[in-house]
C-alpha cells in the first residue's frame, strides 16, 4: 500500500489559501514603512559614519520592500472589482505606488520618499471612502467607549 501511495503521490502541491483571511487591512502599515524610508534617508545624510550609512541603505531597502508588500496586499485582497467603478484610477495609483517603492529602494533622495508617502495617502483616501476603517479594523477601546 505504501509503495502504491508513493507511486501516486502528486508532482506538485497547490494551496487553497492565499493569505490568512483575517480581514484586517489598513494603509497605515504601508505608510509607517514608507515613513521609515524617509527618516532613514534623513539620518543617512546627517551622518558621516560609513558603517552607519551602509546600515541605513540596507534597512531602507528592506522597508521599501515591506511597503510594496503591504500595498500589494491591499490592492489584491482588500480592494474588489466594485471599487474600480468608484475609484476609476485605483489601478494607476497602486501601480505608481509600487513603482515608487522601487525608486525609493535605489535612491537616498527624500523627495522620492515623499512622493511615495503622497501616493500611499491616495490609497488611504480610497480605503477610507470605501468604509475600510469600519469594516476592517477593530475600534480602539477609548473610541468604543466614547
Amino acid at each position, binding site marked *: 500500500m505504501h509503495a502504491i*501511495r508513493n507511486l*501516486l*503521490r*502528486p508532482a*506538485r*502541491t*497547490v*494551496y*487553497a*489559501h*492565499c493569505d490568512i*483571511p483575517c*480581514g484586517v487591512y489598513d494603509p497605515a502599515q504601508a505608510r509607517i514603512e514608507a515613513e521609515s524610508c524617509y527618516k532613514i534617508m534623513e539620518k543617512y545624510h546627517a551622518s558621516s559614519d560609513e558603517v552607519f550609512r551602509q546600515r541605513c541603505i540596507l534597512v531602507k531597502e528592506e522597508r521599501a520592500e515591506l511597503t510594496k508588500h503591504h500595498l*500589494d496586499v491591499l490592492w*489584491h*485582497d482588500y*480592494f*474588489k*472589482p466594485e471599487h474600480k467603478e468608484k475609484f476609476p484610477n485605483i489601478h494607476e495609483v497602486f501601480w505608481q505606488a509600487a513603482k515608487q517603492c522601487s525608486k525609493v529602494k535605489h535612491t537616498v533622495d527624500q523627495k522620492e520618499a515623499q512622493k511615495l508617502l503622497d501616493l500611499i495617502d491616495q490609497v488611504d483616501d480610497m480605503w477610507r471612502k470605501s468604509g475600510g476603517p469600519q469594516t476592517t479594523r477593530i475600534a480602539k477601546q477609548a473610541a468604543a467607549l466614547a
Partner: protein
Amino acid sequence: MLPALRDGDWLVYVPLRGPPRTGEVVIARHPRDEKRWVVKRVASVADGSVTLAGDFPGHDTGPIPLERIVGRAVFRYWPLRRIGFL
C-alpha cells in the same frame, strides 16, 4: 476550499480548453508568487480575467488574468474513501 476539498487531497487536473466556467475548480498561478499554485473555484469570468474564490468565506484572490489559470481540477484520487469527480 472546505468543504469540497480538504488539506492533503490528491487531484488530477487537465489543461483548459477555452475559458473556465463559473463554479469550476481550477488550478492557477498565485497573483503575487509565480512559484505558488492555488486551487480555487471560479466566481466570475470577465473579459480576459477571472475572479477566484474559496468555498470558505474570505478566501478570495480578486480578479487575475486568464493566462494565470493552469488547468481544471477534475478528479480526486486520494484519499480512496473520497475518490471521485469534482
